[in-house]
C-alpha cells in the first residue's frame, strides 16, 4: 500500500507501530510527535492530554491521550523516559498536532533512559516508510480518503 501524499521527513526517526516521529535534541532530550500517517488515521484532533512533567514512562506505555472525532487513542512511547516538557501551544491549539505535525505540533519531550538502545529500535528513511505502509495495510487505511487533505485546507 502506498501512502501517497503523506510525508516522512528524513531528519527524524520513526516508531511506526505507535504512529510517531522522534527527534534527538542537542541537549539529549527526545521530542515526540504524531507522524503524517497518524494524522491521516486519526483525522482532526481536538484535544491532547499529556501525562505530567516528572513522570516516568515505561517503553510501550501511554504518555498521553489524543482525542479526535468520535474516538480517542493512547499516545504510547516507544522508549522509557521521564516527561520533561509539554508543548504549551497545544493547550490552546491542539489542532497544531494535525496542522503542523512535524513542526509546532510536537507533543512531548522525554529524558530518555537508554537512548542508544531505544534509537536502535527506531526507523528512518525508506525502511520507516515501508513500515508505515505495513501498518496502513493492517489498519485497513484507505489511501483514497482525501479527508485529511480537506481538513488541512480547512474545508
Amino acid at each position: 500500500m502506498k501512502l501517497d501524499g503523506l510525508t516522512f521527513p528524513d531528519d527524524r526517526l520513526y516508531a511506526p507501530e505507535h504512529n510517531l516521529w522522534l527527534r534527538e535534541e542537542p541537549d539529549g532530550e527526545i521530542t515526540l510527535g504524531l507522524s503524517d500517517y497518524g494524522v491521516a488515521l486519526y483525522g482532526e484532533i481536538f484535544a491532547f492530554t499529556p501525562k505530567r512533567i516528572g513522570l516516568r514512562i515505561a517503553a510501550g506505555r501511554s504518555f498521553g491521550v489524543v482525542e479526535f472525532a468520535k474516538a480517542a487513542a493512547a499516545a504510547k512511547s516507544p522508549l522509557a523516559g521521564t516527561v520533561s516538557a509539554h508543548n504549551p501551544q497545544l493547550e490552546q491549539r491542539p489542532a497544531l498536532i494535525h496542522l503542523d505535525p512535524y513542526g509546532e505540533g510536537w507533543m512531548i519531550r522525554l529524558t530518555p533512559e537508554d537512548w542508544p538502545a531505544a534509537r536502535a529500535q527506531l526507523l528512518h528513511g525508506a525502511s520507516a516508510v515501508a513500515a508505515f505502509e505495513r501498518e496502513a495495510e493492517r489498519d485497513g487505511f484507505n489511501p483514497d480518503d482525501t479527508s485529511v487533505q480537506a481538513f488541512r485546507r480547512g474545508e
Partner: protein
Amino acid sequence: MAETARRVLILVVSGPSTPARCAAPFHIATLLACMDAEVTLYLTGEAAELACPGVAEALYADPDGAPVIHFVRQAKQAGAGLYLCRKPPAPGQAPTAPEALIDEVDDYGSGGELAAMILEYDKVLSL
C-alpha cells in the same frame, strides 16, 4: 517519579430511559484506559439492558452522533473490561444465558461480586 497503574471501576447505571447519559461512561473508560488505568465497566440496573443485542445499536446519546455501541466498542478496544450485574431470575425462569448478551460483555456476576470489586478498586465512579 514512577507511575502506578490505577484500577478504576465504573458503575454504569444509565440506560435507555436516559440516552443522553449513555455514551459518557464508555468514553470516560476509553480515556482512562488510554492513560494506562485498568478499567472495568459494570452494567447495573437499567444499564444492563445495554448488554442485550440491538439495544446499544439503536441508542444515541447525541442524535447527530454515533450509536452507544460505538462507544462500548471503543472502550473495549482501549482495554476496558465489561461486566454485567446478573439479576436473580424470576421465579420459574432460567437465568440469563451468556449467549443472549452482546459479544462485548466479558462476564457477568452477582451483586456480592460487585460489592467486593467496589471495596477492592482504587476509584469507583457511578455514571
